[in-house]
């Protein structure tokens, strides 16, 4: 069952994953994440939802060295393994939330913690959410208790182009770099509709209308195209010189720096999106606006990874599936603004319905992220009612494999397959219930949360000292 070859292949992929950082440079804010040391763990007799669409009854799962080693019956326990009888328990991949603002809109929600929207200009691809993450947000621990092992932290939706999002592993840490998911591509957050035009139009600025919104995206990408041409030309020249063509004398380093286009953080990000190194995540509610954004993506040659919130995604579910765009959606929120008026409880079910449909249950909320399993359960009930596939082995994909795909980390996590990161949740029963509890949460094979062991329940620095007085 053990597949060392696959492990090596995955490790290699991590090392070479595109950085989309400054031209020619690695990420200047690199991940310092290291899996917490662990000994092998063998879960026995569990009901396993693999995230690949399979359900394994009475199955064992072995993890070792931070990776899934094997699934199946009667696995042999390595000598130093902790063996856990998981009879009656359900085991799933760690839950992944593609849309979180933990750390950038931290609890407590005081003014000083409002770090998610750089609303000084509607186009701010130069800002990075990761530079605002407060790792002491108690919401991280609460999300871990809900089985969330990875998440994308995004800028808010006040801007047309809000900045870069970052994918993190949900491990308690003093620095965000030590949470940063190794090798995960960045996200680019964009927003349709009401929010940007309310923020800027309300101040008498631009955008004031949806027309202004689209003009704003286009202007930004046109500038970035020009920037990309300059860099491509420069890099081609470098390659030519480097290859020694014509035996010309190599330029001095100083001259080289002089010839290089001036770096621009914002355009660098948009260029990364157009080159496919940065995943584009768009906050967009209405079906007609999603269609416009798909055209915008074609106009500038980028791909939309997912539409977030998309309460009307069900109206264009076939097109989203055909174009390989995920819908990152809520189970039931609706009506809080005009563009959310047509929300229906079957939205996720209908986005999931077509062949290649990619439905994701997301939170956008420090409360919702703790109970994504319950959100999925609500969707399953609606799916069943209208005769669509609502099996647990299928539905778990909305919380694991599909968000992993949207984030570009599907080769690493999101399913329980030999060689992948051992991001694993042991539930007290079916996870799709209001009574479900994540009992044990493993991140890269390390037990980081145990509902029955206080010593394995992390607590943010912020939560210390509250119960000191008698």
């Amino acid at each position, binding site marked *: 069952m053990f597949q060392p070859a696959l492990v090596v292949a995955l490790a290699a992929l991590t090392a070479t994953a595109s950085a989309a950082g400054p031209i020619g440079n690695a990420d200047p804010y690199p991940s310092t994440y290291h899996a917490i040391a662990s000994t092998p763990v063998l879960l026995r007799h569990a009901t396993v939802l693999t995230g690949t669409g399979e359900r394994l009854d009475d199955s064992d799962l072995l993890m070792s060295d931070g990776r899934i080693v094997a699934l199946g019956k009667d696995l042999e326990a390595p000598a130093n393994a902790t063996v856990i009888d998981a009879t009656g328990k359900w085991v799933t991949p760690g839950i992944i939330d593609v849309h979180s603002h933990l750390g950038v809109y931290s609890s*407590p929600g005081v003014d000083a913690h409002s770090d998610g929207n750089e609303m000084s200009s509607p186009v701010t691809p130069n800002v990075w959410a990761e530079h605002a993450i407060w790792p002491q947000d108690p919401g991280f621990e609460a999300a871990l208790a809900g089985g969330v092992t990875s998440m994308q932290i995004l800028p808010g939706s006040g801007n047309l182009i809000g900045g870069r999002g970052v994918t993190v592993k949900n491990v308690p840490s003093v620095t965000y770099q030590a949470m940063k998911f190794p090798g995960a591509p960045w996200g680019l957050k964009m927003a349709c509709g009401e929010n940007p035009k309310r923020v800027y139009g309300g101040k008498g600025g631009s955008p004031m209308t949806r027309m202004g919104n689209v003009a704003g995206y286009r202007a930004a990408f046109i500038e970035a195209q020009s920037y990309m041409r300059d860099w491509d030309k420069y890099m081609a020249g470098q390659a030519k010189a480097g290859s020694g063509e014509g035996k010309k004398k190599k330029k001095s380093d100083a001259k080289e720096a002089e010839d290089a286009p001036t770096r621009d953080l914002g355009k660098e990000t948009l260029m990364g999106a157009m080159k496919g190194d940065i995943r584009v995540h768009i906050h967009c509610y209405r079906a007609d606006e999603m269609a416009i954004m798909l055209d915008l993506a074609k106009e500038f040659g980028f791909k939309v990874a997912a539409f977030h919130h998309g309460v009307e995604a069900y109206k264009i579910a076939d097109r989203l599936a055909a174009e390989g765009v995920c819908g990152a959606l809520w189970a039931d929120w*609706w009506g809080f603004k005009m563009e959310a008026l047509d929300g*229906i409880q079957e939205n996720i079910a209908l986005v999931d319905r077509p062949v290649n449909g990619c439905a994701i249950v997301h939170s956008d909320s420090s409360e919702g992220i703790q*109970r994504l399993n*319950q959100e999925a359960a609500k969707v399953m009930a609606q799916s069943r009612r209208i005769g669509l596939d609502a099996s647990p082995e299928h539905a778990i994909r909305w919380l694991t494999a599909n968000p992993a795909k949207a984030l570009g980390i599907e080769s690493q996590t999101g399913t329980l397959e030999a060689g992948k990161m051992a991001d694993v949740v042991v539930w007290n029963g079916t996870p799709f219930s209001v*009574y479900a509890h994540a009992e044990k949460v493993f991140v890269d094979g390390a037990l980081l949360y145990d509902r029955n062991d206080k010593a394995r329940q992390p607590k943010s620095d912020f939560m210390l000292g*509250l119960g000191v007085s008698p």
Partner: protein
Amino acid sequence: MKRILFALALVAGTAQAQDVLIRHATVHTAGSRGTLKNADVLVQGGIIRAVGANLAVPAGMRVFEAGGKPLTPGLFAGLSGIGLEEVSAESSTVDSSLGMGGKGPPQMRPEFDVTLAYNPASMIVPVARLGGLTFAGLSANSTDGGSLIAGQGGVVRLDGDPSAAMIGPRLLFINLGSGADGYSGGSRAGQYMLLDQAFREARGLTPYASPNALLTPAGRETMARYLAGGRIVCDVDRAADIRQLLEFSRKNGLHPIITGGAEAWKVAAQLKAANATVFIHPLQDLPSGFDQLGSRLDNAALLAKAGVRVGFLSPDATHNSRKIRQGAGNAVANGLPWEAGLAAITRVPAEALGVGDKVGRIEVGLNADLVLWDGDPLEVSTLATSVWMHGKAMPMRSRQTELLDRYLKAPGPLPRAYSE
């Protein structure tokens, strides 16, 4: 007058639409009889007439076979803006808050009554009903230039009936703690100062023409009614503030209902001693602010264990108010007895808000506002399959189901706008 009553009774008696015998249900009464397996509920004239096993079928009575499914009283939608707003972000559709604007001296308008703005035809009403919600406490709120005394609300039944929507007494809403700092000069201490001043005015201790008066003559009359024994609802989270409120209430002879209560578990004994009802947010476990540092998921369980009556609020006051059921389920998953979880969204709110003799339980003499479920009513994957209000089967349709019907089908030759 007598003749009119008689006529009405006659109408009720012959109104077939309001007569039904629901048979073989698992009846969760939310009352003293607890859960009755394989029980029947007889409804005549919109009122529950009998609850028990093997009830006789009156001649001509419509029979609904429940097949053992759970039947509950219609659920509480929380303290809500249902019917007071359509789209939260569109101020032209929102009527739940009073903002008097301007900078002048503070003024309080307890006479503000949001129930006058209630729209029974709101598109949110059928959506809420499909979630099994049949009554809501309309709450008054303040915006810029408003006051910590937000105004009055009351309970409505969500049957869309314009004439009979309002039931029960008016409620006075008061906001305390850091959320109301803006109405009290930036300090929560100022809240008691202002309340004390307003109470004095209402008691006639301050001449009408005195400078800095907070209340209008109508406001004084309104406040005086509540001081004489009306229902006051105070929103407060921090344990110290709850203690302060209880002490302030004791001095003033008030018995407030407490909402929010994030740290109520810390003062459970005092709340029990004051015989208070506390409406909490059962999903609140994060320190959302410095008033909520002690938030925890077993708040409801701890309060109930101490003998405090616990009701629930919905995480969303209006559009997604159906999420209140999920909150109740989570409280149960965190230690609250199941029956108390159901009571917290049925009997407890009905009694606390003064409508316990009409709704909130399945008991003889109460309105037949009933919901049949396809599973455990507190489970998220359970759906309401039938809703009766006043004994009348409600259409299981809303704007949302009509959108679904339109987009569920494969597209035809004509645009979907031509579908029903």
